[in-house]
């Protein structure tokens, strides 16, 4: 099960990495990508508050960014 899940995640990564040539946009095509809401972390304040809640209540943390220590809540 775990191997399969890793495969599911790793295969598209390789496909994406090797298929770079046909992906992407020219600089003048970044109108939508340049918007705040298209940023990968468009609401860092929300993310930081959420990370604190879920770090305290669940056994997992991080992934998107560092999930390290920081509080005695878990």
């Amino acid at each position, binding site marked *: 099960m775990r191997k399969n899940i890793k495969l599911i995640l790793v295969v598209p990564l390789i496909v994406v990495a090797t298929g770079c040539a046909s992906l992407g946009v020219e600089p003048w095509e970044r109108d939508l990508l340049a918007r705040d809401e298209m940023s990968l972390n468009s609401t860092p304040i929300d993310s930081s508050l959420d990370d604190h809640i879920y770090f305290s209540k669940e056994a997992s943390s991080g*992934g998107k960014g560092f999930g390290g220590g920081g509080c005695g809540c878990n």
Partner: protein
Amino acid sequence: MKHKNINTNIKAALTLATAALLGTSNVSQAETDSNSGVEENTWEFDSAFLFYSEADRVSAGEAIFNAKKTFVGDEVLNLKLTIDALTGASANGAVAQPTVQTFTRPSGNGQYTVTAGDTPLDDTFQDTRVQLNAQWTQAIAPNYTANGGVHISKEYDYLSLGVNGNLAFDFDRKNSTISAGFSYFQDTFTPEGGLPQALSSMLIGDSNSATWDDDFANTRIGADDTKTTTEVLLGFTQVINRRMITQFNYSYATVDGYLTDPFKVISVVDGVSGLTQDNIYESRPDSRVKQSLYAQALYHFDSTVLDVSYRYMWDDWKIDSHTIDTRFRIPLGDAFGTQSYLQPHFRFYQQSAAEFYQPFLIDGAALPTYASADYRIGEMSTFTVGLKYGLLVNNGHDLSFRLEYYRQAPTDAGFEAPGALKELDLYPTIDAIIAQVTYSF
């Protein structure tokens, strides 16, 4: 117009204060630009207040104040102050019983009782935390961006110090980015009442008796302990097309030191009747290796934006977890406030239990080296549903409101409950409300 002046004044005052704290002298520049939005060499401020409340358990308030300055050369300084206060009751790990139960407070000062049939909660949970983060980001060569930061967090009984660094390389017309980051945290835990001896019995009795303090001290192994967290994070970001961007991360973290929760116990119950014979302090390994894979995609439809992410995490405690998080931003135009939007949020999380998790131990059986009944490392699924509403006010300042419902549902991973435990709820669900207001200026 009056509002504008007030806001200008607030921003100017904050800029002045921040500049004074940092010993920089760009105040006049910032003042003149204070209403012109995101421009170089100005400060941007975000403030947020979050209220978190579990039914019958913990309530917390958390305030964040973030100041960000972008310099002429695109260097970015980010300073963040977080203050939170927490109060209420937290599960102590013991199972519910058909009779009243008595527990000693973690400090050793007094006892509390739990009603028959109720999940034992320690109601002395209370803490205030102050956290400071500083992060510096700058280009170090064409296509190379570096950033580094420091972290300090202090609670009454906990101190966390951290550093982090990250290097990113852009290529293929900046459509692709690879990054490598490193973080290190050193935490010191000094719980009131000291650290209990793992697997020793919780002392129950008359806390006013002459021998109590000595007897309680005999269950302790020291006043404080530390843990370190070292993490490496590798990332790959790829623009797919004009509407879509993706990110993939891999993280490897090792945590070493005191990983036990000194406030948690585990019930030792009779194998036939299910009645508690003893409550012993939990015991966890002194190291944990966690890894995770994270994938995120954002897609811009004609006007809406879909943000979907998935995380798979696994560790050497045999916990693995799946997290799906999605947000969908729906612009409402100017009908419900300037450039207003609604953003529904849905998150689903599911974890398996740590190999040493047990909801209770059976009296007379050999004691395991490690045992914890903390539901947070047991089998569990949680979900969050929420809605955010945002709009622009006062010359383009963002104001948003977020309301969410969070449910934690621990599940039975196949432990056979003896006797009385069959009739009791060993895996109670926990419902919480999250409310947040954010204002950026």
